[in-house]
């Protein structure tokens, strides 16, 4: 689960990680108030106004139809008002949002941390994530902050460092020191970086996260080490013990159909093809999407109805798939193990009757437990449903109905 920058920073702060301070606002006037308050609290004169959306590349992204960037420096309260008014309610298109962009409903008014001082400022990169191959969490860091880390990894891989963490003992002080020295830091800044990394790792573990990315981490001109941006992704499985974190979910950032599917306990991902599918099991669901493609169609979705598929889940699945106007056919592929195929078949028949006229052809492939009874049920229902026994038959039917 992704959260906004302002939420991520609140979490980091709670764990003692120094951040670029800021106040979130939902209107231009609110942003001006936030700026005034921030000036009192931090002594900052300029502020940075940052659009809050679940996507990166905001600094280079623009609000549709304007030249307004997603992150902008405001040198006066008038600037704050103008920038915020441009951002809030606008649609921000960045390299990560796709052409449709994302609607901005909040801005973070943040302190200017690039103020001049005794030493030059310096940006670093730092992330914590799971290294699947090693089976351990790893801290990835680089002296090349503030830019796209994939470019750095590609052009200058020698500038990317990795520190794996032994889960039994956690991040050790010597590792934190190694990171600080590898980043070329001495004196007070070095000490501050040790503290920053140690607390960042505590936050990562404490929140059961799957990914932290702090880009940039900034050494200020007075040797503070702070998180200027923060991307936090929680491990969905970890949320079972973090009700407070679950409350940070912003469903307006997600596809509305996916949100609705989630409420029916269906695992659904919207795609842009023309054949909808409903399957039990994630692997078989992906395989079914592949079959659709090989049969001349394009999958309109991923939908795993899970191990407890029944008449109710089948009907919910139908309703969700049919919301997509691009869907020209639906393929139901159930391999019954514990799931009984005749129950699923009954679900198809019931859904047909409850939803009324389903305007697209439906191909039902039921295999495994009680498959024969299921086929009989479908065949005798009088519904205009194509039934198949093998996966190949189902694939051939997809080709047939599309032509």
């Amino acid at each position: 689960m992704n959260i906004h920058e302002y939420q991520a920073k609140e979490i980091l702060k709670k764990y003692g990680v120094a951040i670029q301070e800021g106040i979130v606002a939902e209107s231009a006037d609110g942003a001006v108030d936030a700026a005034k308050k921030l000036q009192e609290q931090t002594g900052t004169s300029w502020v940075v106004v940052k659009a809050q959306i679940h996507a990166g590349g905001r600094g280079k992204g623009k609000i549709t139809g304007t030249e307004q960037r997603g992150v902008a420096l405001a040198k006066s309260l008038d600037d704050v008002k103008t920038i915020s008014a441009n951002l809030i309610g606008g649609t921000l298109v960045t390299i990560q949002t796709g052409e449709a962009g994302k609607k901005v409903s909040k801005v973070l008014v943040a302190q200017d941390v690039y103020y001049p001082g005794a030493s030059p400022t310096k940006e670093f990169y730092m992330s914590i994530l799971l290294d699947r191959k090693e089976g351990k969490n790893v801290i990835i860091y680089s002296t090349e902050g503030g830019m796209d880390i994939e470019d750095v990894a590609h052009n200058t891989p020698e500038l990317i460092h990795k520190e794996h963490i032994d889960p039994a003992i956690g991040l050790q002080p010597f590792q934190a020191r190694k990171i600080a020295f590898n980043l070329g830091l001495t004196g007070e800044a070095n000490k501050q970086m040790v503290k920053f990394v140690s607390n960042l790792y505590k936050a990562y573990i404490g929140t059961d996260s799957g990914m932290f990315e702090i880009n940039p981490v900034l050494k200020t001109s007075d040797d503070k080490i702070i998180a200027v941006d923060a991307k936090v992704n929680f491990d969905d499985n970890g949320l079972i013990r973090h009700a407070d974190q679950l409350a940070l979910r912003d469903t307006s950032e997600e596809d509305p159909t996916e949100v609705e599917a989630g409420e029916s306990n269906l695992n659904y991902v919207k795609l842009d093809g023309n054949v909808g599918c409903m399957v039990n099991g994630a692997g078989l669901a992906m395989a079914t999407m592949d079959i659709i493609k090989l049969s001349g169609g394009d999958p309109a979705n991923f939908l795993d109805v899970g191990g407890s598929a029944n008449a109710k889940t089948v009907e919910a699945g139908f309703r969700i798939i049919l919301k997509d106007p691009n869907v020209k056919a639906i393929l139901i592929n159930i391999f019954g193990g514990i799931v009984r195929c005749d129950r699923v078949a009954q679900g198809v028949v019931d859904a047909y009757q409850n939803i009324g006229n389903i305007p697209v052809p439906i191909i039902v492939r039921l295999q495994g437990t009680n498959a024969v009874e299921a086929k009989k049920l479908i065949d005798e229902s009088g519904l205009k449903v194509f039934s198949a026994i093998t996966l190949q038959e189902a694939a051939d039917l997809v080709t047939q109905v599309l032509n």
Partner: protein
Amino acid sequence: MPLICGKIYNTYMSVLVGKNSKVIVQGFTGSEGSFHAEQMIAYGTNVVGGVTPGKGGTMHLDRPVFNTVRDAVVKADADVSIIFVPPAFAADAIMEAADAGIKVIVCITEGIPVNDMVVAKNYIATKDCRLIGPNCPGVMTPGGAKVGIMPGFIFKEGRIGIVSKSGTLTYEAVDQLTKAGLGQSTAIGIGGDPIIGTSTKEAVELLMNDPDTDAIIMIGEIGGTMEADAAYWIKEHGTKPVVGFIAGQTAPAGRRMGHAGAIVGGADDTAAAKMKIMRECGIHVVESPAQLGAMMVKALEKTIA
């Protein structure tokens, strides 16, 4: 470091589990544990008891319930455990089984927090045991033992081994093989999570070394590098034909497709990239999952010819 010691191969005639396995169920008295324990017993698996903390000393499904896995090992000589414990407590159950001396631990539970599994995996690396899963359908040796949740009736005794990240896709492969007249030696469902006990490569290696297996079906998914690692190993050490498939050729990058581990992170872990490596390593790759059985028939014909 191999997690499994040589003596296990000698003790069991089949891979991982068999007729001689003494199986316990962790989470025995819960609804999932009860249901599947009954199914396993009906299949003929030697279930010697189960563990539910606080219910030790009672009986369930005519078998003893123990408070701890250690008790089950000492009193019932258990050497295989299957776990149906809820996600928040499942990593602990895995570590308890490993500490108690269980040799093969099969964890069915889906939804275990990733950082719990990081801890558990590193802990059990110091123990003499093998973990299968989590988030998997278990291990099945037709005619020997079912330590999992698969529908037993689709299997047939035979000589094809199966390694798969996915449950229902395994059933699909088994069904196609059975209908093609090919029985199965052992099916290993390794699980769809980012951190699992036994990798694709390790499972393939077990089947490659199994005298009762003639050929292998290897089913993977988008995400991670396990199938590529297995493919390179097969190229070096493979002695039996391998038929392969990767699910998710049409999955978009950056989206999690049901399984926690099924997400395309870069150019290397797409289905196309994995299938290319597998082909280059001599694996018979099918683009359509409907062709797994037919391809195996062909691959075996080539071997004999």
